């Protein structure tokens, strides 16, 4: 195992290659340009393919084609580009093809700005494209997690035949931290590509395979929709993940994901030093949302959701507590960070101090 100092965006590329992803298609957009640049130099060395596509629309459709052949494939972008990919994502979800899509979030709506943000939570977790579908959404909060979750995303995508999203932000993409790289000699379940008998490879020695999203008969489409629903149910049962910090005796909880959770952790420690019983819940899978960790919180009097948007994940927190606990919000937008002392003040206020 080797330790290297790495930028978040580069760690995505390194994680993908470690997971045996050999195809990357993307279109430049800040703050994730390093991913494409990394892939343009590293993919050929790994015997893979890099294409700078003419648009995000083309890139996601190249992903659709390569994924249909059974190979591991990735694309990355940020807000405006992810919006363009939504048509393709809907088709990929409908066709039950595995792939990894990275969104290093920047400020929106519109062109917004290139500063970090968490305002694509709804888009990633609630749809964005048309139709009744879900995606697995992983939210890292360190460069190490970016590397690990990227590898895991390929594994989960193949396991369930579903697109998986890495939802990071401009801070995570740009910052440098030490990363422990996977040992390529070790048998690695994330790097192993399963058999894909459904893949489009030419029909040599078998019946033809078809990848299709048009199901013109209402009964056929309805059956497909319920089949997808069953799969999403299964993912929800197996794959929910959250990180819990100092929650055992907590009377106040902070709920935050990604970089906001890291800042909130500092605020939790500051409040603990003052004797306030506060803990942190950090959802790691944003879909499936880890609602189970918000149940049976008998000692908890209030939850503070902290996000870099005007309040998106808070809706899932509220759904999870089913009205039993008041849920409040603190957020910053436009590329501004929630400050740990400001979060600390919110915690103190909620604690009646």
């Amino acid at each position, binding site marked *: 195992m080797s330790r290297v100092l790495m930028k978040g965006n580069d760690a995505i590329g390194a994680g993908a290659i470690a997971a045996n992803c050999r*195809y990357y*298609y993307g279109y430049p957009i800040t703050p994730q340009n390093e991913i494409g640049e990394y892939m343009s130099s590293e993919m050929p060395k790994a015997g893979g*393919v890099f*294409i700078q*596509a*003419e*648009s995000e*629309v*083309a*890139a996601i*459709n*190249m*992903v*659709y*084609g*390569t*994924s*249909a*052949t059974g*190979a591991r*494939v990735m694309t990355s972008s940020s807000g405006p580009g992810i919006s363009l990919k939504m*048509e*393709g994502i809907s*088709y990929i979800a409908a066709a039950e093809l595995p792939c990894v899509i990275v969104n290093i979030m920047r400020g929106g709506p519109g062109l917004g700005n290139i500063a970090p943000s968490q305002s694509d939570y709804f888009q990633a977790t609630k749809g964005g494209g048309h139709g009744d579908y879900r995606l697995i959404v992983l939210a890292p909060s360190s460069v190490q997690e970016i590397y690990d979750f990227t590898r895991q995303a390929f594994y989960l995508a193949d396991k369930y035949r579903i697109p998986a999203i890495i939802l990071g932000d401009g801070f995570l993409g740009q910052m440098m931290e030490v990363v422990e790289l996977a040992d390529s000699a070790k048998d690695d379940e994330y790097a192993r590509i399963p058999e894909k008998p459904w893949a*489009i*490879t*030419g*029909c*040599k*020695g078998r019946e*033809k*395979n*078809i*990848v*299709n*999203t*048009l199901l013109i008969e209402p009964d056929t489409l309805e059956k497909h929709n319920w089949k997808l629903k069953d799969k999403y149910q299964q993912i929800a049962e197996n794959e929910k993940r959250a990180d819990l910090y100092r929650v055992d005796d907590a009377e106040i909880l902070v709920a935050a994901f990604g970089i906001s959770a890291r800042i909130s952790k500092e605020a939790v420690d500051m409040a603990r030093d003052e004797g306030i019983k506060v803990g942190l819940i950090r959802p790691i899978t944003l879909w499936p949302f880890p609602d189970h960790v918000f149940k049976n919180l008998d000692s908890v009097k209030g939850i503070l959701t902290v996000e870099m948007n005007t309040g998106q994940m808070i809706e899932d927190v509220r759904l999870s507590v089913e009205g039993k606990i008041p849920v409040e919000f603190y957020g910053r937008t436009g590329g501004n960070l929630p400050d740990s002392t400001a979060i600390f003040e919110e915690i103190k206020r909620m604690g009646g101090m």
Partner: protein
Amino acid sequence: MSTVLKKTRSLEDTKLHYCPGCSHGIVHRLVCEVIDEMEMREQTVGIAPVGCSVFLDAYFDFDIIQAAHGRAPAVATGVKRALPENLVFTYQGDGDLASIGMSEMVHAAARGERITIIFINNTNYGMTGGQMAPTTLEQQVTTTTPAGRDTRLAGFPIQVPELLSSLPGAVYLSRVSAHNPKNINKAKKSIRKAFQAQMDGLGFSLVEILSTCPTNWRMNPVQSIQWLEENMMEIYPLGELKSVEGVS
């Protein structure tokens, strides 16, 4: 009794959903015959468009991917890069290719992707009921040009192979027609050349096929053949627009 003609292996033995007199069925047969003559059925991947030919998987007995409207060349790119030894082609109408999918087509050609586009030009959007397409002729009546295409308001027809011909990545560009036996035979030869250029690794190839859409042209099949000859061929002259050295 001896068999003089039989359905080629790659063509499914099933009823086509196309209207009487529609060219789609003929072109399906030509594509399948060429694939079988090249003995490529088991190495072929076809990309279906959105349009009347969206159901390619029902008619072709080889691997098929159905793409989003206009995106087939990007999907084909993703397939070909992963399966460089396979024959990869898209089959697209004029709305799919020359309107919503213009960018994907041009850039696949610019990159010299080793794919082939089979392009059905029937001067309108068949599947959605006969609206104007980029290929609709000047003064042609469609459901969205009820007074005839007025070029001052709705622009001019696009000649696709001509448009692509300046791109070095495009190595074989031709226009053929499927309206009578002589031209159908020529069309088949052209499809073969385009597929061969791809398999020889030369670059991007496209065959435009002038096609009839009697239903939306509000004509019977015979009238539609006549209309194609009298009106389409002038704007869309037949021939090989580009065939670089090495194409055979």
